[in-house]
Structures are given as structure tokens and as C-alpha cells.
């Protein structure tokens, strides 16, 4: 008898994603749902979606979900976690959300060492509004507001938010991964697992930055977008464990 070995995870509703073909959000949603199922925490998890392409994430995750004003995911997650400390709380935020309008909230949540997990989706642009420059846009990268490419003198250099958050005293686990190949997808799932375990153990602020394809705004095929992450984006945002004060967790 053939056995089904891969199917939709329990905490993802049977709904068609509104995301574009090849979008990294779709894969990342699935990984988060798989991790919640494997750690058996879905029934006590509360997710906080952002403003941006993932604003409707509550239509997909079959766990309790809230919603944060633009950039305020870590602040809302702080409130939820402090009120309901036995819940597992994660915010899910894009780069425009977390690294521009929400910078202050994010840095202070990390510095306070809030026991939450932040999932930071870095696709180097404002996806939902049509591909404008974000703080994370690479030098030379085209966007609708940097035709001809981002210029350091005019537009500043990309922001290394995860490295900045690693300096914050309260953060304990920060890793940058990518959705660009089977290997990197598996690595992202391992990092998510560790981040949620960090929170389950009550150890403090964890954040996973995920380099994620936005093929439509990058004007690339999904296959080329994945390759561009590996060849180009990782030059500016290298994949690595940025901070680990957690060590091995069971």
C-alpha cells in the first residue's frame, strides 16, 4: 500500500493562497504550520500578521490570529504574550513592515527580551504596493522608486536589521536563512523549530530572517528568483546564525 508522506499540514486551512506564483510567503506559511504541528503547540499559538502581502495570513493559518498595525507586530505580540504567557506568540512581518515603519518597536522588543518569536520576511522590496524600494533593497537593485538601481549616496545602504537586533541585550537567538532551494528550505524549517523551542523554554526574544523570493516585483521567473537569492542577495545578507545564546535544545 502506498503511504501518503507529504500533505497539507494540520494548521493550514484548505484555502488557495492569494500570493503570486512562486512567492516565498506561501512556502514559509507551510513551514511555520509544519513546525507548530511537529512541536504540538498549534492549539495554544497566537499569530500576529503584518501590513503587507501577508496581511491576510489569518485566512490561511488555522490557529488563533490577531493583526497588527503596520510595523507594530513585535509590540502587539508583546502585549499578547504578557497577557497570556502560556501561549506561543509569533509575529510575521515583511521587510517594509519591520525594517522601516516598525524599526523602533522591533528594536525595543528585542532589547526588552520579550519571550516572542518574530518571523522577518526579507524580499528586498515593498511587495504589496508594487515593488518600491525598502530599507533592505540591495545596492544597484531596481525598484519602482529606484529606477536604474539603488544608489548609496542618494538612497542609503541596505539596513542590517538582524545584526542590529543581535546587539540588543535581550535577544537570544537570531538566524538568517532563505527560501531558495530544497536545502535552504529545510534549513529555514530547522531555524523556525529552534526559535519556537526557544520561546517554549522561556528563554527570550528569537527572530528568524528569511530571504524570500518576490518574483513578480523582481521581474524574474520563480526559478530565476530563487537563483538570484543564492547568487546575489546572500552577498549582502549572508545566511548564518547571527546570535545564539540558546545552544542545544531538546
Amino acid at each position, binding site marked *: 500500500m*502506498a*503511504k501518503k*508522506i507529504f500533505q497539507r499540514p494540520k494548521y493550514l486551512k484548505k484555502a488557495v*493562497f492569494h*500570493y503570486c506564483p512562486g512567492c516565498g510567503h506561501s512556502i514559509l506559511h*507551510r513551514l511555520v504550520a509544519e513546525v507548530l504541528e511537529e512541536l504540538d503547540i498549534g492549539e495554544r499559538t497566537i499569530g500576529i500578521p503584518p501590513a503587507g502581502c501577508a496581511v491576510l495570513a489569518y485566512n490561511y493559518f488555522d490557529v488563533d490570529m490577531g493583526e497588527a498595525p503596520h510595523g507594530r507586530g513585535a509590540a502587539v505580540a508583546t502585549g499578547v504574550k504578557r497577557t497570556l504567557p502560556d501561549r506561543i506568540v509569533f509575529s510575521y512581518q515583511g521587510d517594509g513592515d519591520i525594517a522601516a515603519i516598525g524599526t523602533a518597536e522591533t528594536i525595543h522588543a528585542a532589547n526588552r527580551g520579550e519571550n516572542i518569536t518574530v518571523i522577518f520576511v526579507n524580499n528586498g522590496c515593498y511587495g504589496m504596493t508594487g515593488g518600491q524600494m525598502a530599507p533592505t533593497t540591495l545596492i544597484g537593485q531596481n525598484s519602482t522608486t529606484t529606477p536604474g538601481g539603488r544608489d548609496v549616496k542618494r538612497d542609503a545602504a541596505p539596513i542590517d536589521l538582524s545584526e542590529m537586533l543581535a546587539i540588543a541585550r535581550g535577544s537570544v537567538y537570531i538566524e538568517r536563512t532563505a527560501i531558495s532551494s*530544497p536545502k535552504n528550505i529545510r534549513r529555514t524549517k530547522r531555524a523556525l523549530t529552534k526559535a519556537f523551542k526557544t520561546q517554549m523554554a522561556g528563554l527570550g526574544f528569537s527572530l528568524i530572517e528569511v530571504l524570500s523570493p518576490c518574483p513578480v516585483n523582481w521581474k524574474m521567473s520563480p*526559478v530565476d528568483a530563487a537563483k538570484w537569492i543564492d547568487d546575489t542577495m546572500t552577498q549582502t545578507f549572508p545566511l548564518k546564525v547571527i546570535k545564539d545564546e540558546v545552544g542545544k535544545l531538546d
Partner: protein
Amino acid sequence: MAKKEGLIVIDRELCKGCYLCIAACPNKLIIISDELNQMGYYPAEYTEADSRTGDRVCNGCATCALVCPDLAIEVYRE
């Protein structure tokens, strides 16, 4: 003669035609359908493994499903 170990089922109505699965399958078992689905994409289509010659046999590795953004692929293994 290689044994057929795996099998996938693609839900053509969930597929958005990103073709990440085609690039990922080590055994080149997935092709582009020449008929549109309801959403207006040319979905991915699974071609049966050739278990007679041992060529292009699905081993149930699930790499296609791992990279599929839209959960259009289910994988079965013997």
C-alpha cells in the same frame, strides 16, 4: 529493473504554474500541461515513472512538494 517507490499527485486546480517543482525533481518527472486550469495557468503535470527501464523513476523523495508554494503536490511512498 528499478522498483517504482514513489508517486505524486498534482492538484492541477491549486497549481499556479511557477514550475519550481520541475526544476527541483531530480528525475525529471514533471512537465508543463498544455491545458489551462481554472485560474488561467498552465499547471504542472506528473508523468508516470518508467519502471520498465528503470529510467526516471519517482523515488518519493518529496523534493517537488517541498518547493511547491501552493501545496499542489501530495507524495506517496510504497
